[in-house]
């Protein structure tokens, strides 16, 4: 038994719910009030759906902060400091800056500075390894550490031997990199004061600066001897 025109029409709708209607279906609609009503209703539903979809929906701002906290707690994300240069090469592989990383950085910076005066195999013997244990925990760094460090910078530069401008240049260049990082971290902390990760990064950046200055002081002292 062949399907009725109404059954054929509904089957066509199932296969092509958005049309276009065939010539046969259009003819059927003209002669069948029931199918015509069905078609009009379905079009109305489709239109209402489209209208609903056109309304702008905005997720709340705090959703990202919440998601980010979750990602951090799972260790899925890490920060990428801007313009970190060679420091990022050393620390980029770590998920975040930590006190441990600061200890490693001491060796890197010390080796770098030592290399200016004692190139080659000698550099390995003059690393001020005792400083690796002197890196303070970020929690011990006071909020005004930045200002204190700025005072130290002047003192350290004053102590550098005039006979070694390369050392001063190297220190200036590396301080520039670290200051840039500090500025970025401070901006992040200002924007998200409750973000513990941002604060950790700031402490880490301060610590980098302290370590660099301590190393430069040691270098200067060893040359004076």
């Amino acid at each position, binding site marked *: 038994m062949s399907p009725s025109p109404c059954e054929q029409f509904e089957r066509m709708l199932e296969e092509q719910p958005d049309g276009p209607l065939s010539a046969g279906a259009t003819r059927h609609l003209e002669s069948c009030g029931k199918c015509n009503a069905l078609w*009009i*209703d379905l079009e109305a539903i489709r239109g209402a759906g489209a209208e609903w979809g056109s309304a702008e929906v905005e997720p709340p701002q705090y959703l990202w902060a919440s998601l980010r906290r979750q990602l951090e707690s799972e260790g899925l994300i890490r920060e990428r400091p801007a313009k970190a240069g060679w420091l990022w090469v050393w620390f980029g592989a770590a998920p975040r800056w930590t006190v441990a990383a600061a200890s490693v950085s001491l060796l890197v910076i010390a080796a770098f500075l030592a290399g200016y005066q004692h190139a080659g195999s000698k550099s390995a013997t003059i690393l001020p390894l005792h400083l690796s244990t002197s890196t303070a925990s970020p929690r011990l760094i006071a909020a005004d550490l930045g200002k204190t460090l700025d005072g130290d910078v002047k003192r350290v530069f004053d102590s550098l031997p005039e006979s070694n401008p390369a050392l001063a240049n190297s220190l200036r260049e590396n301080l520039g990199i670290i200051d840039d990082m500090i500025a970025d971290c401070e901006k992040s902390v200002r924007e998200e004061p409750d973000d513990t990760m941002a604060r950790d990064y700031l402490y880490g950046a301060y610590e980098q600066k302290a370590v660099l200055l301590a190393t430069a002081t040691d270098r200067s002292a060893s040359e004076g001897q």
Partner: protein
Amino acid sequence: MARTRPTEVRELGEAEAIRRAQQGDAEAFERIYRLHNRRVYALCLRMVGNTAEAEDLTQEAFLQLFRKIGTFRGESAFSTWLHRLAVNVVLMRLRKKSLAETSLDEATEPDEESGGPRKDIGAPDLRLSGSVDRVNLERAVDQLPPGYRSIFVLHDVQGYEHNEIAVIMNCSIGNSKSQLHKARMRLRELLQEFERSRAREERQAAKGGSGGGH
């Protein structure tokens, strides 16, 4: 020294953001989130009809995305992949909530219990007068079985094509079309029921009003 990072983040393209996110870059994650959060949130909200739940589901969808982003190889469009994840997250939630569970497979062959299209039971057809009230539509969508609801929201509300829905819902294009038709038919029935109840309430109110006057 000028800091250029914020500009770089804004200009980060999706492909680059995905590559960086696969390496755990926080800014790349945020970029991906900003690119897609509205659409995913809208999908969740329209599927569950509740803002708190939609927020929770959006977060869950992105969380799953970021957990799995290392496995994304670009065989399908990233947004399709993300929306597939989001739809699955929503469906999981809906099915947990629903006593009468209706999986997509079940929805493919609907029956009376799963909420599939029902035959008329004697009630006269009620035209929707060519227009559908948004509030009623949302109420009706809320009563659809999850499978139908997904297809309707994805196609008619969110504007996905059937070939995209086929990927997202892991079904054939023909199945997507057929499900959409059945979802609309069920919506029509629900909307007609709303109209009938409204008409009934109006009649009762009129009776009560006229009765009270004597």
